[in-house]
């Protein structure tokens, strides 16, 4: 187990360094921040002065080192628009994003777990086929369109729910459903194939041969083992989930990190963009790490095999 944890930790550090290089690249390699900051009629001298002021005349690795050593301390520079540190701006927007992703994840699980297990236990039944069909169709629905249609139906026509914003539990319903519907199809299919695989294993047959009741077989023997692929997949899906959250946030004007990032991209406010990209990526990496650890704890094959 120790060796496994160590190896995963090394991998984690390498990935984090990779993320920092990529997000450094967004600002410094692709665009010229001086051109964005200065008015268009600025002279050459002024350009040079700002160029030096921002440290852009130094070699790239020096610039990267400066960026990385500051970023580790939570200093991503000040926002070019609001006169506040980018890090604080992004942190303030973090809780709504976390609430939304958790709510979306729970919704997805509420849909996917029972349907996936049922479909696996009654393979090739009408219910199974129906679930597969819904899942295939669900994967093709663009969630921003789903969000708009939900707003049209529930907010505009029925006036039952607020169209956008944040605060009460009513504000949560549509975004959470939207995000859940985005994640549920793929989760359901993975739960189904996980359970199917486990149900065909020898130890299930043994349990049945011992005379264990079918309900106990499913709950105690099958489900616990089927949890392993499900948890792994959910961890890997977290990146997807955050991607979906970005889309959902923009549709429902949810005051999270994603709307902040999208607004900052429109305003070309690069410190904020950089900071939110780094923090979201760090969130995904650390959740993946935790998931790996949990799976290794449940499943001895992984830590021994590694």
């Amino acid at each position, binding site marked *: 187990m120790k060796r496994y944890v160590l190896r995963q930790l090394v991998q984690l550090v390498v990935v984090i360094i990779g993320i920092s290089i990529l997000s450094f690249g967004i600002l410094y390699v692709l665009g010229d921040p001086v051109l964005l900051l200065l008015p268009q009629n600025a002279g050459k001298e002024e350009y040079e002065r700002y160029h030096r002021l921002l440290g852009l005349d130094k070699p790239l690795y020096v610039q990267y080192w400066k960026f990385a050593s500051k970023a580790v301390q939570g200093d991503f520079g000040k926002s070019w628009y609001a006169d506040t540190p980018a890090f604080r701006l992004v942190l303030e927007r973090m809780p709504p994003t976390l609430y939304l992703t958790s709510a979306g994840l729970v919704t997805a699980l509420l849909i996917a777990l029972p349907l996936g297990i049922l479909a696996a236990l009654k393979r090739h039944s009408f219910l199974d086929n129906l679930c597969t069909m819904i899942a295939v169709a669900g994967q093709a*629905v663009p969630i921003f369109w789903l969000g708009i249609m939900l707003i049209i139906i529930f907010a505009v026509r029925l006036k039952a729910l607020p169209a956008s914003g944040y605060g009460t539990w009513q504000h949560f319903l549509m975004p959470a459903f939207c995000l859940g519907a985005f994640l549920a199809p793929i989760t359901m299919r993975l739960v189904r194939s996980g359970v199917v695989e486990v*149900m065909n294993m020898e130890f299930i047959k043994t349990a049945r041969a011992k005379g264990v009741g*079918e309900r106990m077989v499913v709950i105690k023997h099958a489900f616990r083992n089927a949890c392993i692929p499900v948890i792994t997949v959910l961890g890997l899906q977290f*990146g997807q989930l955050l991607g979906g959250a970005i889309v959902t946030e*923009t549709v429902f004007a949810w005051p999270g990190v994603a709307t902040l990032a*999208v607004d900052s991209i429109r305003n070309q406010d690069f410190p904020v963009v950089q900071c939110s990209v780094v923090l979201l*990526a760090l969130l995904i990496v650390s959740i993946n790490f935790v998931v790996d650890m949990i799976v290794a704890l449940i499943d001895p094959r992984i830590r021994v095999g590694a």
Partner: protein
Amino acid sequence: MKVLSAEGEVALKEVDAVIAAPTAAQVSLRRLRRLKWGLAAAAILLLIVGSAVLAPWLAPFDPLAVNIRHRLAPPAWLEGGTPQHLLGTDQIGRDLLSRMIFGGRVSLIVGVASVMISASLGVLLGLTAGYFGGRVDWTVMTLVNVTLTFPFVLLALAVIAVLGPSLTNMIFVLGIAGWPIYTRVIRAETMALREREFIVAARALGMSHARIMLGQILPNLVSAITVIGTLQVAQVIILESFLSFLGLGIQPPTPAWGNMLGEGRVYMLNSWWIAASPGAAIFITTLVINLMGNALRDWLDPHMKL
């Protein structure tokens, strides 16, 4: 000696019925049924592609022609609609059906072109990683992990905000971002193939590494690449439409399903049809591509796990 009670035996029989492996006939029947779905999907896709290619001849109106007098006309089957504008008109009186037909061009071009970029990139990296193993493998897989943990939607938005929105930039960004999925699958398959006799023989014959990878291994992976590529086209189409929806993709007045949806969102209070039909187009296109991809998978390689 009777080990099982009568009850237990009945239970076992029922259980057996649940988990019994399907017979060969059942399997081929199911494959045929899915193939039928795939063929139907392919026919619909052909229709969509055909109408996009033949757009200038099929579209009843110029997609950019403004007609303020007929603005916000509902679809023909609703009250106030005219048979002239089958799907109605938008806020400045442009014919929605014509814009839909032309809009499909953008989605399909971006989808196919960027999948070609990411497939070539991902396959090459996957082949190299799987074939050489060791450090090369480690480096490539770390790159895969970094890319997968990056909040890709934000990255794409940031890059496009810097480079400026245009068709080529969009193809480039979406193409660069999609490679890890190919690399993961191709790497695993290459690792398995590497040990087979014909590769050992090729090496003994003195073939170069490049020739073995491209001439001996790659042909065995064509079906896997085709299936992933097909399914990825659908993903790219959804992403492209989201970027256009946010106003960071194809710029108006050029019609694209995504930016039509974005424009329609403003008018959804009274004129829901402007947003509804491009959304439906995205949904149907991705659905038929997914169905076709699934059928292709069954047809080309029933054992492939994706």
